[in-house]
């Protein structure tokens, strides 16, 4: 198509634009996420996810040994949940989730650390093998907040034939929310299964036979029928939570 204009001509040209398709659910950008492991330390540092822009929702998923909590250092985060909570002695691991709204001047990395050293115990460091995964989420909502509904479970340290997480146990008030399932467990993962339609977007296994799995449907639905099942299970902690859409 071309426009030909003559001298002195006043050409009217009205245009109709077609809106771009709108994604009706939040998006966890798996290609941009960053992960880090800490060995024998009090802290774990993770790089800023790729392509972070002001206003993005940054979600940090942290797993620690035992029941130690982590608190952010230098950069504020909002706590989504800590499972188990309150602390259960001899219960491990512990999962924690945080969020933060990216500013125009985000740091290049984020450090999460445990509180001051606790009384001596068998392991000299609270983070024998601590993990953190940080992702960025777009198209989220803020009314009343980015997270809607949290469901968590943890074992009591005993063996179980299975431990199940059901998304239906979440209180879901906003359709097309993004369901994130974050678990950490201490057992031979060869015997661990995740059932359901939610794909795993990240998993790590270290020599202590630990793994963190995040089952992220990458699309929202008004209701869910997904189950995360560990068979057998021992010392499991995990949570499910929703990120509400921005529309």
């Amino acid at each position, binding site marked *: 198509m071309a426009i*030909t204009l003559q001298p002195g001509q006043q050409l009217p040209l009205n245009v109709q634009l077609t*809106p771009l398709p709108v994604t009706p659910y939040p998006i966890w950008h798996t290609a941009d996420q960053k992960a880090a492991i800490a060995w024998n330390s009090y802290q774990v540092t993770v790089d800023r996810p790729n392509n972070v822009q002001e206003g993005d929702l940054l979600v940090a998923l942290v797993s620690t040994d035992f029941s130690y909590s982590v608190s952010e250092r230098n950069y504020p985060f909002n706590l989504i949940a800590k499972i188990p909570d309150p602390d259960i002695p001899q219960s491990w691991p512990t999962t924690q989730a945080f969020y933060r709204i990216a500013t125009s001047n985000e740091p290049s990395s984020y450090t999460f650390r445990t509180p001051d050293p606790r009384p001596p115990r068998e392991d000299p460091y609270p983070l024998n093998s601590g993990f953190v995964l940080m992702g960025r989420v777009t198209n989220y909502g803020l009314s009343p907040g980015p997270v809607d509904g949290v469901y968590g479970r943890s074992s009591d340290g005993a063996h179980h034939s299975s431990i199940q997480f059901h998304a239906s146990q979440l209180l879901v008030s906003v359709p097309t929310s993004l369901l994130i399932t974050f678990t950490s467990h201490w057992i031979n993962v060869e015997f661990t299964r995740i059932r359901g339609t939610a794909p795993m977007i990240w998993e790590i296994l270290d020599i202590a036979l630990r793994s963190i799995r995040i089952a992220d449907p990458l699309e929202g639905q008004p209701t869910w029928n997904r189950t995360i099942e560990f068979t057998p299970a021992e010392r499991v902690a995990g949570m499910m939570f929703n990120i509400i859409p921005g529309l």
Partner: protein
Amino acid sequence: MDERKKGIAAAAGVGGAILTFLLLRKKAVSDPDKAELYGKVTNAQTGGNVAGAVVAITGPGGVYDAVTAGNGNYRIINIEPGTYSGAVTHPDYETHPL
């Protein structure tokens, strides 16, 4: 003439003066040997006005562009005559070639 009518007459006088000024101003800056492109950009689905769309054309006179106002209107004046191609772009809409 009561005070209310006087007010209306005064307002009409001021409005007319502004309109006259704008018309003269347009004439003053528009070259009769050049061409002009104007129009409105609307949402194809809702019919609403699209503000902030960029209308850009490229041709013998170079590149000309304008940004639509809150009412969706745009106007590009003093365009060198000739054949142009271009596009209307907006971050929330599909690009519309011209």
